[in-house]
């Protein structure tokens, strides 16, 4: 239920984390990757650090002890065969799973020294973490109102500043020229690709820190997909992006780091170039080369 702030939390983990808010202890896999990384992994600031994340649908466990570091201002791709837990994983970051009674997460997800899975104000968390869904879902209101939604909700702005920010968000989402004459038309009057860019504009207008993208291109045509991929590369300067995709080529094109999921576990995580050219795990290699999934 939304608004529920008490979640099961691994207390030991949390106290350990909170004693050292910004230093993330190196994990084994990360340490190994570092040897071959082209940039200094540990020097990059971490936006979100996941430790020991388990997830349950009712009695069924879907995620097993996930550990991952999401690096600030970088694109992290999450790949894997369908049903492996990719979406489930990123949906823990903004606690959107809280809407559903029988879904539960345990472990620690640290952001700014606070465990997201603990007692946090969900409204504030979701102000800082935006989400793009697989199916473009504009709200039943005009284009302008869609983009202004988050701004109006969290901030007090004058009319002119609001308009300016809406225009800015639409421009940065590479859709301004297409909709500038249609600002007062309903959001769902746009094409699929445009709707998705509208949703991106809506998400970034409120200036989040992180943008989660759950297979944003799978319901859209290839031309629109290319536009969105371009967009992602531009956006990462300002935001941290986590991209779930079943399209490996997309992950290779667009991301800096890649995590490979299989059956609820993170099999391998590292720089994209390394994952795709020189995967360490056999499963990773089999997936990359298309031998399964």
């Amino acid at each position, binding site marked *: 239920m939304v608004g529920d702030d008490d979640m099961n939390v691994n207390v030991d983990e949390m106290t350990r984390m909170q004693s050292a808010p910004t230093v993330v202890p190196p994990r084994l896999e990360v340490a190994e990757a570092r040897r071959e990384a082209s940039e200094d992994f540990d020097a990059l600031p971490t936006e979100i650090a996941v430790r020991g994340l388990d997830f349950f649908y009712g009695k069924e466990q879907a995620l097993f002890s996930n550990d991952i570091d999401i690096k600030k201002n970088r694109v992290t791709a999450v790949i894997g065969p369908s049903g492996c837990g990719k979406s489930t994983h990123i949906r823990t970051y*903004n606690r959107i799973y809280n*809407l559903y009674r029988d879904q539960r997460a345990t472990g620690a997800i640290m952001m700014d020294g606070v465990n997201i899975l603990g007692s946090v104000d969900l*409204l*504030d968390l979701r102000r800082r973490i*935006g989400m793009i869904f697989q*199916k473009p*879902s504009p709200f*039943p209101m005009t284009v302008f109102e869609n983009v202004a939604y*988050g701004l109006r909700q969290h901030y007090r702005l004058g009319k002119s500043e609001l308009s300016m920010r809406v225009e800015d968000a639409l421009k940065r989402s590479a859709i301004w020229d297409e909709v500038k004459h249609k600002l007062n038309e309903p959001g769902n009057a746009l094409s699929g690709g445009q709707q998705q860019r509208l949703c991106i504009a809506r998400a970034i207008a*409120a200036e989040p820190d992180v943008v989660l993208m759950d297979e944003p291109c799978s319901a859209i045509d290839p031309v629109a997909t290319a536009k969105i991929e371009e967009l992602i590369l531009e956006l990462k300067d300002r935001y941290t992006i986590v991209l779930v995709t079943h399209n490996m080529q997309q992950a290779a094109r667009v991301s800096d780091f890649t995590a490979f999921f299989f059956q609820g576990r993170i099999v391998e995580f590292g720089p994209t170039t390394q994952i795709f050219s020189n995967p360490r795990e056999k499963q990773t290699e089999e997936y990359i080369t298309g031998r399964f999934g």
Partner: protein
Amino acid sequence: MSTVEAPLSSGASGPRGAESAPRGRRLRIGDPVFRTLATASGIAVAVMMFGLAAILVYKSWPAIQALGFGMLTHVAWSPSTGEYGALAALAGTALSTIVAMVIAVPLAMVIALLLVELVHPAVARVVGTGIEMLAAIPSIIFGMVGLFVIVPFIQDRFTPWVLNTPLGKIPGIEPGPQFQGGGLSIFTAGVVLAFMVLPFITAVSRDVLMMVPRVTKEAGYGMGSTTWEVMRKISLRYANSGIVGAIFIGFGRALGETMAVAYLIGSLYTDMPRSIFDPGTSIASLIAQQFSEATDKVQVSALIELGLILFAITVLFQVLAQLWLRRVRRATGGRA
């Protein structure tokens, strides 16, 4: 093969059917007969409606000739003095229905919100069923319980309390010259009516709210909205038209409610109500109460004319609701 064909061969076309031609021909009328019967039944439903309208007009004709539509401008219904005015009844009908909707609509909205967003689906099913049971309770039961339980409460406690607050001075609440204490009044009838239309509006609202796509709601929550904000800014906009349609239909039903209103509204036919706490009457309850006392033909005809007026009003509401829903259905491309 024969076991399959045996029961059906009588109607089969093709070589076998042609061979047993006499049999086939006799039974091939089965379908046309069936179709005709079905079509006739379907048309009967529609024809009845026009028959109803026609009879009402025909039988109220004497009164229409005598009174014109003066019924609509004259206040009092008093056959003993030859007055056949429907205005008091129209006012009472409108007021009691408005009171009912003012209570029922917000109540239905928050209950639907609860059923859709706030409780476990199993609980929602139980509560929803409970409210639907409310819809099954006949009007006369509401009337009786209202009469013996609600009326004394409103008379002895509620009305005096309201009149003591500043609310008591507002026109429309401040008692008029016919005030009888507020127990048997337009207000009481409205309150009970509210719970008679509540189930329908709640059920429809719940159904259309459940049709809001889950992704869209998640997107709303993902933006950091509260439950109420998602409901207000997103879900209600989606469900808007369906809910409005339900309100139209509920309004129409409340207009025609007879028994509960007859018990509770105070049966005052002769004056315009100045306050919702005044006694009054509604068209339906007036007809119900006066019909058995009607002796001469003019009186009966006048009552039928009154019935015609009520019929016209309710049909108008139904038609408006249908037009609205059809327009909405076309706009959204699906069922609203």
